[in-house]
């Protein structure tokens, strides 16, 4: 827990120690770390005064909570109705094929997480894919490939700069 330390304490201190604030705390933890670790879950439950089982019951009920770390880059394919009609399912399949991991999962090298999202509300631009919080309008399989290439390129530069290659 030591490496979270103060930031996590700060989140706990933001809210009164009551059960109704459990979701608030979990959302902030997820916002700060991208997922909810066992330790932070225990802390939040203790603070809210609920049993650990309730913490997990909440975290597994709501879609936005993750119990595992996310990949470095998150690709979210909008599967709202307008995007579905304009072929978003094909984009999901294309991504799954290229990255070798199913939607909802993270690649083994921890580089990519693929998710689907119910609707991002940019239906005029369907199909939309959100790459690292940046919405990409009118997506096609070809544009998706280009996107992945750009990210891959950046990742390669990053690793070089860090002296890994």
């Amino acid at each position, binding site marked *: 827990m030591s490496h979270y330390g103060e930031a996590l304490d700060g989140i706990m201190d933001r809210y009164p120690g009551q059960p109704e604030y459990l979701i608030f705390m979990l959302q902030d933890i997820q916002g700060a770390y991208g997922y909810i670790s066992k330790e932070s879950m225990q802390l939040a439950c203790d603070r809210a005064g609920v049993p650990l089982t309730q913490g997990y*019951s909440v975290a597994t009920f709501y879609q*936005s*909570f993750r119990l595992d770390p996310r990949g470095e880059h998150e690709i979210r394919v909008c599967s709202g109705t307008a995007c579905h009609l304009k072929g978003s399912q094909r984009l999901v399949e294309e991504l799954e094929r290229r990255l070798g991991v199913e939607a909802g999962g993270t690649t083994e090298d921890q580089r990519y997480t693929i998710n689907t999202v119910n609707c991002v509300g940019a239906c005029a631009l369907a199909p939309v894919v959100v790459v690292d919080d940046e919405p990409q309008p009118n997506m096609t399989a070809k544009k998706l490939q280009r996107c992945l290439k750009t990210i891959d390129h950046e990742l390669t530069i990053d690793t070089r700069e860090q002296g890994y290659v």
Partner: protein
Amino acid sequence: MSNPNAALEVMDWRLKSAGDLTALQKQILETRDPNRPEIVVCHGSGCMANGSPKVTDAIKAALAKAGIQAGVIPGIKTTGCQGFCSRGPLVLIRPQGLFYQQVQPDDGEEIVERTIVKGEPIKRLLYKLPETGETVFTEQEIPFYKLQERIVLHNIGKIDPSEITDTIAAGGYQALAKALSTMTPEQVVAEVEQSGLRGRGGAGFPTGRKWRSALNAVAKKGRPVYVVVNGDEGDPGAFMDRTIMEGDPHAVLEGLIIGAYALGAEQGFLYVRAEYPLAIKHLEIAMFQARELGLLGENILNSGFSFDVRINRGAGAFVCGESTALFTSIEGKPGNPRPKYVRSVEEGLWGRPTVLNNVETWANIPQIISKGAGWYSGLGVPHSTGTKVFSLVGKVNNVGLVEVPMGVPVSKIVEEIGGGVPGGSPFKAVQTGGPSGGCIPYELRNTAVDFDSLTQAGSMMGSGAMIVMDERDCVVDVGRYFLRFLEEESCGKCLPCRLGLTRMREILDNFSRGLGTENDIEDLISLAQAVQDGSLCALGSSAPNPVLTTIRYFKTEYIAHVRDQKCPAGVCKDLITYVIDPELCTGCRSCARQCPNNCITGEKKTVHVIDPNQCIRCGICMETCKVGAIKVN
């Protein structure tokens, strides 16, 4: 946060009466020159995704460069969604009212140099009427806007949602002042009852009657009583609540405060979908600014009435749009609905009387109080008064947000305002009401869009998503889509919903593979009946609607899947093959290069062939082909 506006600094912050509010409004208007040029950039979700923040930056940079040359330094304003999403990014130039569309960052400099400095319109950026090609200058000349009646959206696209002064200048909080200073709580409830307003979240329950029941519950059980905004807009394809919260957050707050006054509530909750960070931000700013001015918090406008509100972020569960599930979620628990033997107005949040209304419903309240129930009930049709905001999406030319009086025919929205289907063919069906709604086929295009007529047609109003489908959309596929959605979102409490939806989806999966029989269609209908009857909340009881209406109106298409193993729309993968038209193929090899399964063969400049046994039907070849030689059979 800094002071909302310099105009406020010269006076005492807290407004102490209705008169103070009017004086402030007057003061703000006096400091503003109506002839000052203003560049208004749409920062709605559609335009933002299309790059409008970059356009704003480019215009700002160009303005800085042009400097004094412009004579009068123009204002630059960012607003909520202006509605015409498919033409975005949108930029409006005032005072002329020029409507620029599809503006790119590169256009920023020209807008400043030509339109602002020289006062000339840029023809290239103006809208052209699709039928005649004629260039038009202002919003009002465009059918998409001209045919709408904007009541709830009247401020959106005009005001900066993060400046309370903009709202006040436009008459914001006047309804609250009127209610507090001239009306008793009883009169407010009576006004809402008489307006005929019905809940905009989907079910269409009369808002006034709901408030009345809550008052009766309070009389029996005492306080506290809570008021709650349902901003957990979960229907895919619906973004009107988001737009209202992002674009005019004060309208929602004002409605809520008026409701709290009518019901005697001291605490309110805004439950906002987590995927809407900008809505949350704008509501937070609005709450802060309203508190600063004494429009929210202790002793509002010195009336002795105190009320405050808190935001709860949703955590990604569609079922939390249901009232009792939403309450358990606010209480910090998983959002499971409970039986409603006792209605939630009597036993809602923490077992207390609670009024929960949808965002759009709350945003209607200030208008009703300002202009009166008589005015409001004159809009729309007798049992569905007022207007409704729709998000018009799918296979339609003018994608965007549309507000029309209740009771207009479907065809007016889709064909006149929406400009019809790209390519000019008639639409196949319009899906309304999201996963709980149904399809209105082209033959019923004259169906009036109001609560009762839509229900009669087997669909429902729902939150207001209107998804246009054309001949290339398969009803079996759409049915599978909604079932898969609801299957994932079912909380699992009731067996008919939890397992019934899965089984229904499996039957449709078989149809999409050509494996079903005609008897399965009957089984599907009887299973749908069981799910409807055996589910506790509206998620389950309305879940079969999309399938049932498509069977009702498009049975031949279902039969084509099971009897002939054909998907007439060319969508269901296992029933289609991709072929290359030898007449059109130029042998450019681009499809072959893109094919992920390497199953397209052919030498350069000779006709190519797809191996149907290897083809995985990903459709990339079709997307790649520049001459349109690839067809679906």
